[in-house]
């Protein structure tokens, strides 16, 4: 029967081995995969400014991006492709709550510059390789 010291060895050994494998995989992903998949060469200062605005206003508190965030408002990974620049800017610059289907968005009333920055960020996100996410609706007629 398993002794307490064997159980301890199982815990410590298992933890160290899996953590080492995790670090190695992380290193490979971050150094080889991420730059290619996210097209890091397109990560302009404007995109970064867009990310800052995205975070400063907690957009993830309602929307998801890359499937992460809250489930109150639409997924925005492919919003640039789906809606285009004009629509996104209208929503961002609106002085009254944007509510195309009844559910209200906070009226941020962003400036043209700020809206352009967020659009640049969303366009960049839309071009990342996410292993096929979001899926194409296969039952759509």
């Amino acid at each position: 029967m398993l002794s307490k010291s064997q159980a301890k060895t199982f815990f410590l050994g298992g933890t160290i081995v899996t953590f080492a494998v995790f670090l190695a995989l992380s290193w490979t992903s971050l150094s080889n995969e991420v730059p290619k998949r996210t097209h890091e060469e397109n990560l302009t200062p404007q995109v970064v400014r867009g990310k800052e605005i995205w975070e400063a206003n907690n957009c993830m508190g309602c929307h998801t991006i890359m499937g992460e965030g809250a489930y109150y408002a639409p997924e925005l990974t492919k919003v640039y492709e789906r809606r285009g620049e004009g629509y996104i800017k209208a929503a961002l610059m609106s002085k009254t709550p944007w509510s195309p289907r009844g559910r209200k968005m906070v009226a941020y009333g962003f400036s043209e510059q700020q809206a352009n920055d967020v659009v640049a960020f969303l366009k960049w996100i839309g071009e990342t390789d996410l292993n096929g996410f979001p899926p194409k609706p296969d039952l759509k007629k």
Partner: protein
Amino acid sequence: MKYRSQKVAYWFFALSMLLLSLQLIYGFIMGFAHMGYDGLHSVIAFNTARAVHTNLLVVWLLSGFMGAAYYIIPEEAENELASVKLAYAQLISLAVVGVIAIVGYHFNYWEGRKFLEIPRPLDYLVVVNVLTFLGIILVTLFKGKKRTTTALVLTMGLVFAALLYLPGMIWFDNQAMDSFFRWWVVHLWVEGVWELIMGGILSFLLIKITGVDREVIEKWLYVIVGLTFISGILGTGHHYYYIGVGKIWLIVGGIFSALEPLAFLGMALFAIAMYRKGEKKHPNKIALSWTLGTAIVSFVGAGLLGLAHTIPQVNMYTHGTLVTAMHGHLAFWGAYAMIVLAIISYAMPNLTGRKLYDTTTGLYAFWLSNIGMLGMTVAFGVAGVAQVYLERKVGLEFGDVQKEIQVHFLILVSCATMFTTGICMYIYEFVKHGRPSDEALVTQ
């Protein structure tokens, strides 16, 4: 209680109860908003309610863990806490940081990263707070007469939790990198080191409640926390499927996520086996219910429901939908909320001397909150599956789908009302115990 300084735990538990009550209010705001009643939108927009709801959860759980440590460590180490004054100062600073953060969320003062919304300047205060807490615990432990496995596992969980907070404080320009390291905090907390904390508290409770030999319980504790780390660390991969960090995680995350329920199954079997094996039947039936309950519900909520949507082919469709909320609610409730409520139920009679071991209110609190939460989970699940089908398979617009599934939120809010009634009863019992008293000290 055996040591006077254990009384500090009461105030951490009281803070937990206060924050839990607030968390529920914001939960209702969100539930109603999903039903189409968003009258508070201009004052408390959904993103505010959401950040407050999740952050209050994290803070009340942390406050509960800290209270648990302040209660358990003196008893395990056979030593008074290193500094009671510092522990009170740490409690007050935790409450102050929490309040500033929560108020700030109402005024667009946050960081906008899911679960880690606390603004950067406050992060540093959190670090100081946690270091103070760890200092007190570690000094108490190392000056103590004994260093038990239970105490070491609990402390190891707390130290790792503090260390893992740091990767979340690094700024990345690249959203994929940002997300990658955000999960180092969030996933490795909840599916890693928090399970050590849970395991440590569970082990302490089982030793006290069942009377089974410490050596047997602690041996299995090692096996369970071992399984947790072996599956949980590489299981982080299930968050990396679709965020732009490579294909390898589909395989690694898929395999190790499938193993994650094993740790929870182990925990459930362990708790039940120890209960059956134990000859001593502790009279605190309420604490026993929560202890066995946490082991079983965490297996269902965190283990099985987690497995149900971390299979890569399924997650492709369920990722970022209400299915996640389904798993999230029962997982956090079963694994962490219930373990905190278990240790509070065990500690309160010992701290105050009022032995409310088997009250009707206490048992109703257990059953109403659990049945209410199960109902909420089902409502989230039905809404989530309908959303996945209509939006991701049929291709309907997000807003149109949300209108279709509004009715499920009526059920959700009804079940949440049952849940809240249970929690109110729990808090009523908490208050009825009164304050901790030196008269409750027992010398052995």
